[in-house]
């Protein structure tokens, strides 16, 4: 219910011009992207946009390379939202906010963080991670609530 409410909110927040911010490089099993109220099947080569929510099934996994060379992957049973992404390819200024509501995430930080440590933030139900430059993994079990 809470997730539905969040998705409805995100759908309203989608800007008129949603630029491509990354590209799917790996996809296995059941994976889809929720964009503007639509469910899109995911295949390698597909572009990812700000406000997309990436959802994987029990056998699903997906990896995305972003325009600043950040790498993100989601494991099985994961809900990962790309809340906000901006990157200037000349100055490398930018910001990157993503949320993992449940499941697993692996992150290799990219040029946004190299230029501005902390400008990438990963949100979970209980915390916010400010990324200063590193590779790390996150698990959110949705056992709670």
């Amino acid at each position, binding site marked *: 219910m809470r997730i539905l409410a969040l998705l409805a909110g995100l759908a309203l927040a989608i800007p008129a011009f949603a630029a491509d911010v990354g*590209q*799917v*490089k*790996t996809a*296995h099993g059941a994976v889809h992207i929720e964009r503007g109220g639509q469910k899109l099947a995911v295949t*390698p*080569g597909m572009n990812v946009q700000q406000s997309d929510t990436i959802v994987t099934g029990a056998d699903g*996994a*997906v*990896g*995305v*390379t972003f*325009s600043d*060379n950040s*790498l993100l*992957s*989601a*494991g*099985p049973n*994961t809900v990962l939202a790309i809340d906000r992404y901006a990157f200037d*390819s*000349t*100055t*490398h200024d930018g910001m990157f906010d993503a949320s993992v509501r449940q499941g*697993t*995430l*692996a992150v*290799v*930080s990219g040029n946004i*963080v190299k230029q501005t*440590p*902390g400008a990438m933030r990963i949100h*979970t*139900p*209980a*915390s*916010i*991670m*400010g*990324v*200063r*430059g*590193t*590779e*790390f*993994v*996150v*698990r*959110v*079990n949705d*056992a*709670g*609530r």
Partner: protein
Amino acid sequence: MGAAILAAIFAAFVFFGRESPRTYDETVIILPPPPGKSIGGVVVKRGTEEHLLNAAYASSRISGTGDVQVVQSNPTEVHASFSDVIAALPPRPATFMLYFITGKDVLTPQSEIELQGVLAEMKKRPSPDVLVIGHTDTQGGLDSNDALSLQRAERVKTFLVGIGIPPERITVAGRGDRDLLIPTGPDVDEPRNRRVEINVR
């Protein structure tokens, strides 16, 4: 009797309708960096609490109603719990460096070989794309160097299209003199900084 039933219904309503406190189960683990790279770390914030994780396998756990613990994880746990998500990470971008013959619109012989390396690298990757990044030395002003670096990148894009890479797979960027390969002061003629970098992703 009727009152007792009503009381039981009321009690059940109170019990099931109550907001139980939310509980959490979250784990973060820092992975060892690739050779030669350092760990900048991750700051885990929960309310006003902050914990910096900046060593390989440093880990935070949030459990129950939200207590944060910092612990040391290990390769066994990472393998057991995260091998599928780590396997799904896209391959790291591969970098190639190209140079023009000074004063000419021609690549150096070594750079011609690098160009073929780009093609070979693309064949190894799922759904590859290419980012072409132009750089200048510190001679000239900011705006003119930004324009010049972008021109160099555009020029290399035409070479890449010429060897068969689809133009829609290529993105260009110009960094001006912000990212010097050889650090110099202002207004320094440094051929090694006048380069074009290619990321195959």
